[in-house]
């Protein structure tokens, strides 16, 4: 799971067009380099587009915004096929974009 911070979003915004292109190209290269291990990946639209439905009350409650308001937001995820956590950690270490990556097993 890729996690963006406010700081990272600001840096991205402040970049010139060329710099931004270079940053996107680095991400593209990362996906190409590890294509054999990546089974699926998704980039999420920015968090201001989020809507949350809470089903734990009497009636479903719909609110504007993500389920936790925080300085860090999940911005996308990639599903990878690896032998163990160490291999996943190696992949995560080489990730060139947002500053936080959370790794979780999936079934």
């Amino acid at each position, binding site marked *: 799971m890729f996690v963006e911070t406010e700081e990272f979003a600001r840096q991205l915004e402040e970049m010139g067009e060329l710099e931004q292109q270079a940053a996107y190209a680095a991400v593209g290269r990362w996906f190409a380099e590890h294509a054999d291990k990546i089974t699926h990946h998704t980039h999420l639209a920015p968090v201001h587009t989020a809507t949350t439905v809470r089903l734990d009350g009497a009636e479903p409650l719909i609110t504007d915004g993500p389920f936790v308001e925080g300085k860090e937001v999940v911005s996308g995820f990639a599903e990878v096929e*690896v*032998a*163990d*956590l*160490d291999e*996943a*950690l*190696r992949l995560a270490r080489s990730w060139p974009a947002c500053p936080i990556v959370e*790794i*979780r*097993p999936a079934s």
Partner: protein
Amino acid sequence: MSEDALARVVREHAGRLTASLVSLLGDFAAAEDLVQDAIETALRRWPAEGVPERPDAWLLTVARRRGLDVLRRESNYRAKLARLTRPEPAAADDRLRLIFTCCHPALSRAAQIALTLRVVCGLSTAQIAAAFLVPESTVAQRITRAKRKIGEAGIPYRVPSQEELPGRLGEVLAVIYLLFNEGYLSSTAERSQARDLVDDAEWLAALLANLMPKEPEAAGLLALIRLHRARGAARFDAEGRLVLLADQDRSLWDRQAIEDATRLLTRAARAHRRPGPYQVQAAIVACHAEAAGFADTDWAQILVLYDMLLHLAPSPVTRLHRAVAVRYTRGPRAALAELEGLGPPLQRYALYHATRAELLRDLGRREEARRADERALDLTANPAQQALLERRLRWD
């Protein structure tokens, strides 16, 4: 048979047995459960029956029998266990894999420590809880959670590859060093009832140094622990009060142990020429240990070593210790200046305030010194340190 002797026998065999069962079953958690169970049986029966001639074979038999019982439904395990009749010949010591798995960075520090003690040293949950003064249920939960994470998150059971090794070895060394510090700082003159963690830490460091002869930091950590221990007898007076380095009776130091540890350190440093924080810390302790009296301490050399240490591993605590060397080379005013800026990160660190108090007292600023000592007293939970600070406040 004393509890200590019993613990030593268990420690020699627990890790090996777990390692061979993990290899056989391919299941860390299952193997660990079986070994713990066998150890508990041993701790119950050995005091009365005596330690069997082949403790490893005895433990294996109990673990296997128990395994066949527990894993009745899992034919896969059952068939594998049935084949196992004698301890695996220890061709390559698998305990290294065990240590690296227990100290994987994906586990919390507390979990790494508890798991290492249990899996590698064979401590029971109750012994770990007693040593850290936490409820047994807390330790049990930590271990269960850690074992589940190893299984479910896919933490591999192996020694990390060469390119990952430096970082991962650092993790293992940190766990052993923390264990040592916990035991060393909380120890008192009268041996407490709790397990001697210092002994476990030295044993682990020796095991690691032995299994990784090409890593000078492992030897460095072992030398560091041994150098501290060699001076252990002088750390407390007859009434069990903490004695400062300057006032220690150096005839109580174990000169032979100091010499051996220094030789170990020098040999590792010369053979590999890869200095690291543990080798440098050991060299600093060796400088103190080699001085005939406090007045003979080579503070200039110690200052150089602290500069090296700061370069290798910058930390506010190291800068605090370095300030003490500055006091003896350039005087208390220069040392106090070194403490400037350390206040924010070390605000809750008793030793920062205690050191500051000493420097202020040197400079005749008694009222400020008093306040700093009181602050230190508020912050330390260690009874020996508390007593020392109280004495100082009384004399003042």
